[in-house]
């Protein structure tokens, strides 16, 4: 006991310390972890009150709520880590309704033995991402599971936001004739993460595109309040997103491969690994569907923002009772862009 007391007195040992079971058991160790790490990093008056919930005023408009679980290997990758990803991901899910994100809640499930130094880095990254986005992390929860029963750390974030009156963005609202706009190049996140996988490690200067998109969305909604549908292409890539919208809106989508921006480094990696960039994950891109007559105005608003600099119209919504996504290939033929079955795998032949 004296040993434990000494450690308490000395503060968290970030150099050699690891998460132990008692960090999640509700006792003094947990209180110390919350106070020294979470409260200090996330630093806001809601958290400082130490309630099991946060209480706040909500202004006019409709409330938006979302939740997202984050599991990723490796935890740290070029351009980001699981911490900032957990903040950006939930902020983006809120923003895709055209909403302004207000607050986040975070739940962490940490495996016994997880290095405190890594936890500190992850928490710092979350705090920085939240601060940059102007969104406070106002409440949270920590659990510790026995060694072998987790994969380092799992993070769940929940967020709330407010949609301005008059904005009605939803996945079933795409209409034949709508322009399909993409905010920038695809596949950067997925390839950056793959490059650090143990079994696949390769050198690349590529970084994840992981970013909060709510500011870009605010500019877009300002320019064209009548955007029909919007979504960010994460797992499953651009292809999954387009199929989801086609299904929800009961339409088809016609794409032009030439118009879809792909960074040379992403093309190179996909070429070597036998992957298709259309199916590779992103964490800082969005796709918007708007009436054709608004397309140029929306595109201009996107390109005026740093996160939409390379925005392009990549296709058009068409009538199709089978809800296919089809593409005119750069080569001059055409093909279907289908849902992915299982995971994308390198080819054998």
């Amino acid at each position, binding site marked *: 006991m004296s040993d434990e007391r000494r450690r308490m007195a000395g503060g968290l040992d970030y150099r050699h310390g690891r998460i132990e079971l008692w960090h999640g058991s509700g006792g003094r160790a947990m209180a110390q972890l919350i106070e020294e790490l979470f409260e200090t990093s996330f630093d806001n008056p809601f958290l400082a009150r130490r309630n099991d919930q946060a209480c706040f005023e909500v202004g006019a408009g409709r409330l938006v709520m979302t939740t997202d679980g984050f599991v990723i290997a490796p935890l740290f990758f070029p351009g980001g880590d699981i911490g900032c990803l957990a903040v950006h991901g939930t902020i983006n899910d809120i923003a895709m309704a055209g909403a302004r994100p207000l607050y986040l809640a975070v739940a962490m499930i940490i495996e016994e033995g997880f290095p405190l130094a890594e936890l500190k880095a992850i928490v710092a990254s979350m705090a920085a991402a939240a601060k940059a986005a102007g969104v406070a992390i106002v409440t949270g929860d920590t659990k510790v599971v026995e060694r072998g029963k987790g994969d380092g750390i799992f993070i769940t974030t929940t967020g709330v936001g407010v949609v301005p009156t008059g904005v009605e963005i939803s996945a079933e609202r795409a209409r034949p004739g709508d322009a399909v706009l993409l905010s920038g190049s695809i596949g950067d996140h997925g390839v950056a993460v793959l490059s650090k996988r143990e079994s696949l490690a390769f050198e690349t200067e590529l970084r994840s595109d992981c970013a909060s998109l709510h500011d870009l969305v605010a500019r877009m909604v300002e320019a064209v309040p009548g955007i029909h549908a919007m979504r960010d292409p994460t797992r499953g890539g651009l292809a999954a997103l387009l199929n989801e919208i086609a299904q929800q809106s009961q339409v088809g989508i016609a794409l032009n491969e030439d118009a879809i921006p792909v960074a040379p480094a992403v093309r190179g990696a996909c070429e070597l690994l036998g992957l298709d960039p259309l199916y590779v994950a992103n964490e800082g891109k969005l796709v918007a569907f708007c009436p054709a007559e608004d397309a140029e105005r929306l595109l201009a608003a996107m390109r005026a923002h740093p996160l939409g600099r390379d925005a392009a119209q990549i296709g058009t919504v068409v009538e199709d009772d089978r809800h296919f996504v089809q593409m005119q290939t750069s080569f001059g033929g055409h093909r279907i862009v289908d849902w992915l079955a299982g995971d994308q*795998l390198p080819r054998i032949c």
Partner: protein
Amino acid sequence: MTTVRFIDEFRDRTLAARLADGIAAAARPERAYRLMEFCGGHTHAIFRYGVQDLLPANVKMVHGPGCPVCVLPMGRIDHALQLAREHGVILLTYGDLMRVPGPERMTLLKAKAEGADVRMVYSASDALACARANPGREVVFFAIGFETTTPPTAIVLRQAKAESLANFSVHCNHVLTPPAITSILASASDQADTPAPRLDGFIGPAHVSAVIGSRPFEAFVRDYQRPVVIAGFEPLDVMQAILMLIRQLNDGRCEVENEYTRVVTRDGNVKAQALMADVFELRDSFEWRGLGWLDRSALKIRDSYAAFDAEKRFPLKSAAIADNKACECGAVLRGIREPVECKLFATVCTPENPIGSCMVSSEGACAAHYTFGRARPALAPALADAG
């Protein structure tokens, strides 16, 4: 590695249009050209880039059996399942194989969910590394593929022997390309009563030919009187090969031509061949899904490497297991049926829930057709306006 050069050069739309014009001009309207691309890599390129759209209606591509996952019979999948479920090994294999249905629609992926230790690897050397890292466990590499993936398996077997790695073995399913091509035509001539449409020529394999060279196809051309053009996996390679085949057919020539001279030589990679010969020998006969038992069509591990042969190391039950009766994978692999002609296609059999192996790998004719090729012609004009 971030810059991979010379991709666009082989996918250039202007060159493609020029080749398409050349093909349209060369193809005689009074006849049809049925050409088989043997390799899954070519099938994939044809669908992914929409090559068929650039061909005249009387030039038809038929998709062959050159997909390693597609031709593996159920009995071999059953071996993999036995190793993983009954012998407690770490079973390593290439990703696509994990979804191939075996007996009673069991897959390696399902076995993994049940608790079997099945892992996906990207290369044979990853398998060896896994064995070194787990000295207390039996590690089996379930090796599949044509001549392209065989030399890497040979290398790891030699390394394992040199290191006296006691916990590593290979379950060898490597198969050979020339016997399969021969079988497609031999069976067509055997069954004269089957109304199998004639195959006029073949696009020969790309990477396989880099290893074995173009020479092995010379006997085939002589015996079966069909032209072969070896081609790379880029869409322009495929179109150039189609043009070369049409010219041969028009001229009444029957030769092995090499479109892929930037990689393939007549003798191939002699060093890789020597490696394969050191470690492997021919099997008397091997079962291919869809093609049946073919003589001298596959490789087994030589006795000098017997300690590393999983088939010798583990008591595995071998049973002949029939495919689903309604599944037309066999006819599809021979080019007799098109995927859409199978009753199961896109109804019961989909990439999410494959019945036959051709629906599993993206190189399989059914999966490629399902994933890329179901476009309705009525929509094609809308694509021209896209963007």
